[in-house]
């Protein structure tokens, strides 16, 4: 059984993509009872593949493609699943009972959508005044951008992060789109909803939480706005460098497309690195590189020297040797490299998940370990509608009711494949 910190907390998820669903999985890891209300009959975004001939997100195996897409699996462990058309009368009744059952409701539609569907905060609190409702629209629920659409990559661009994370000499055209907010927003909203539950202990009432993903990104990068407000400068891409630390770079290693990150933050670390490279003189008093001031002046020359050196070594072996000398060094991993980490194996980090439609694989593990109750992957990502009956029975619907909903296609356990 997984951790029990949130035992007894009931979470209802009507969320798409990652920022909502992955946070709900983390709540599940922590012991909450999570029910994912999955879009039906339209597929969830994370179950949509492109053409499987060229879409690398689709795992090999038998069964529906929408059950084999990697973007869906990781964000949906430790939940139950009901596939429900929430726009129908019967679907609304199911939702109403779920809202009564829930302590937390998580939605991630673009701003305004949830109100148009009839599930705005005013309606929700009429059904259950104790519930906490969380909305995750990228620009938040109020303001001139109400109704506009985008996802993580765009919020990154509008928060100023995109322009500081590329290669120093490149234009934004070479800026790699990333989904950083999908990873970080769940961590923030868990604080928000548990904070709301704590407040409910005193007031007896739930709260509405409006989390604008772009504001959470802004929160994470104080250096961007401060460089402008303090010094009237627009920060430029720093790539892998740090203005105050040399060396601080990603260097080539032996082999194709192999790399190692190395940094020496102190004179002592630099001394160890110079010694390892058999150039003790670089750290002896009097040599310009013995001082951080001199090293910063000669950044490129030093990087060139280190690059020539690291090219001869395997990045894992070299990192082992440098770390043994107290030097900051790490191989740059690309899948499947994590499987080579003795550390991750020693900590039993990898998880083996049994799934009916994808081959047995070692998947990534949890974000934390907890004593005395460790997290565990109790429920793999549920198949669409896998728990329809159990959930509906739990909510007090009869077998006849359930059969009628299935007959009217209000619930389901298969999607129509649009592309095969």
């Amino acid at each position, binding site marked *: 059984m997984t951790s029990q910190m*949130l035992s007894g907390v009931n979470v209802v998820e009507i969320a798409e993509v*990652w920022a909502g669903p992955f946070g709900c999985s983390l709540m599940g890891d922590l012991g909450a009872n999570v029910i994912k209300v999955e879009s039906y009959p339209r597929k969830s975004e994370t179950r949509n593949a492109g053409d499987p001939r060229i879409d690398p997100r689709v795992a090999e195996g038998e069964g529906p493609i929408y059950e084999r897409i990697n973007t869906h699996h990781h964000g949906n462990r430790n939940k139950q699943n009901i596939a429900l058309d929430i726009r129908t009368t019967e679907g609304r009744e199911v939702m109403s009972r779920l809202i009564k059952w829930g302590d937390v409701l998580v939605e991630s539609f673009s701003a305004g959508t949830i109100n148009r569907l009839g599930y705005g905060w005013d309606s929700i609190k009429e059904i259950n005044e104790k519930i906490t409702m969380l909305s995750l629209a990228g620009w938040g629920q109020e303001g001139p951008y109400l109704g506009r659409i985008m996802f993580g990559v765009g919020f990154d661009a509008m928060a100023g992060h995109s322009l500081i994370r590329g290669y120093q000499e490149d234009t934004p055209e070479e800026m790699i789109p990333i989904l950083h907010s999908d990873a970080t927003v769940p961590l*923030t909203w868990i604080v928000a909803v548990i904070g709301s539950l704590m407040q409910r202990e005193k007031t007896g009432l739930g709260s509405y*939480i409006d989390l604008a993903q772009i504001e959470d990104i*802004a929160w994470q990068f104080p250096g961007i706005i401060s460089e402008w407000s*303090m010094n009237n400068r627009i920060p430029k891409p720093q790539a892998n460098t740090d203005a105050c630390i040399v060396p601080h770079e*990603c260097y080539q290693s032996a082999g194709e497309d192999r790399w190692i990150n190395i940094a020496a933050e102190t004179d002592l670390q630099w001394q160890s690195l110079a010694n390892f490279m058999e150039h003790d003189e670089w750290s002896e008093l009097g040599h310009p590189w013995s001082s951080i001031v001199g090293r910063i002046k000669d950044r490129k020359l030093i990087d060139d020297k280190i690059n020539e050196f690291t090219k001869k070594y395997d990045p894992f072996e070299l990192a082992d040797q440098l770390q043994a000398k107290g030097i*900051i060094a790490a191989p740059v991993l690309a899948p*499947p490299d994590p499987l080579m980490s003795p550390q991750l194996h020693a900590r039993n980090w990898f998880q083996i998940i049994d799934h009916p439609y994808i081959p047995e694989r070692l998947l990534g593990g949890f974000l934390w370990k907890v004593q005395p109750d460790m997290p565990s992957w109790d429920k793999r990502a549920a198949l669409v509608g896998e728990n329809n009956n159990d959930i509906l029975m739990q909510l007090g619907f009869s077998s006849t009711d359930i059969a009628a909903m299935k007959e009217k296609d209000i619930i389901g356990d298969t999607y129509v494949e649009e592309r095969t």
Partner: protein
Amino acid sequence: MEQPLVDLRVLEIGGSVAVSAAGKKFADFGANVIKIEPPTISEVRKIPPFPDDNFHIDHGAMHLAFDTSKKSMILDYSTNSGKEILKRMSSDSDLIIIDLPAKDSEELINLINSDAGSSTNIVTITPHGMDGPYKDRVENDLSIFGWSTRSHRHSISGRAPLRYGPYAGIVQIGSTAAAVGIAAVWGRKADGIARVVDISGVEALMGNVDSAFFLWAVNGATQPRSSGQSRGLYPMGAYKCKDGYMLFSAGRDPMFTKLCNAIGRPEVAKDQRFIDPEQRPSHFEDFKKILEEWLITKNKYEAFDHFQEHGVMACPVLDASELQNDPQTVFRQSYIVREQPGLGDITLAGPPFRMGGLHSDSWVSTAAPNFGQHTNEILKQYKYSNDEIIALFRAGVTT
């Protein structure tokens, strides 16, 4: 409204960016957070930028942002006298977040939880976790990102992998500590069990939803390293317009068709060169030319309005000088200006979420403390006499 975390007492130990970010998530929502800083100066205070590029221990941007609403105490917790103080302070704390080398964290865990029946929730942050062959490794912002699998994916073939913006990974690790930390507090109130949480920075990053490892693990296929502008599922990435760049995520239908309509070229959405998955990559440059011919006549906010009216996922790429003037951030007051004693007005990001309304007072950001500003006050709060406080100062335990 009363701040939601007003009843919580949190100690943060170590002075790193990660532990400071974790503590801020509690402090700005009302928790009583004490930042226990080493006499050797917290890392978070050393990181630029500084106003007018003048170093000051209390004026670094990271410190000013991540230490708001906290109290600062200087304590040498490597000494027995310091440990005694820490032990006393831990007795009424709901949560203690520690970012120290594993062996030091282990020692503090044993100290804090040494008395039977008086344990406290503790979260440790280390690069590789509290056990295993790498537990004593030293990592930083750059190196740990290399482990995360993101660097390699965040790069262009043949060129060096890239980290994200400085401290992106470290702040994410701190946010992870906050998420599980508040769950531990809730759990203890419910079942009386104090938890010890072990956060390995590598696992916190690699286990998150955007991990390249996970994407590989499910399907077993290696995905190619990205390019800036997608050559297959275009337009994805930044494209030049009249006064800067627009960011698009409109490669799939129905978005692609909407985009073609929006630029007055509906025929493109029906052209096999641009929609057949096998032909598409070889016609990227042709499409780019079509899109840029339209874009180059529009400034980014014109283009933003136009594309959004057509239901296309597109938005401007903003730099630091533009953030505060964006209409949405102005409306929501996403950035705030407030006075920092001894410095004047500073600009900070506002709340990461709004509880109880856009401008509710559930989030209150007060000035970041000066180094050791509250040492004396806190020692008195924990019943140390003036003579004892002087003795601790003379012994170098506090300053």
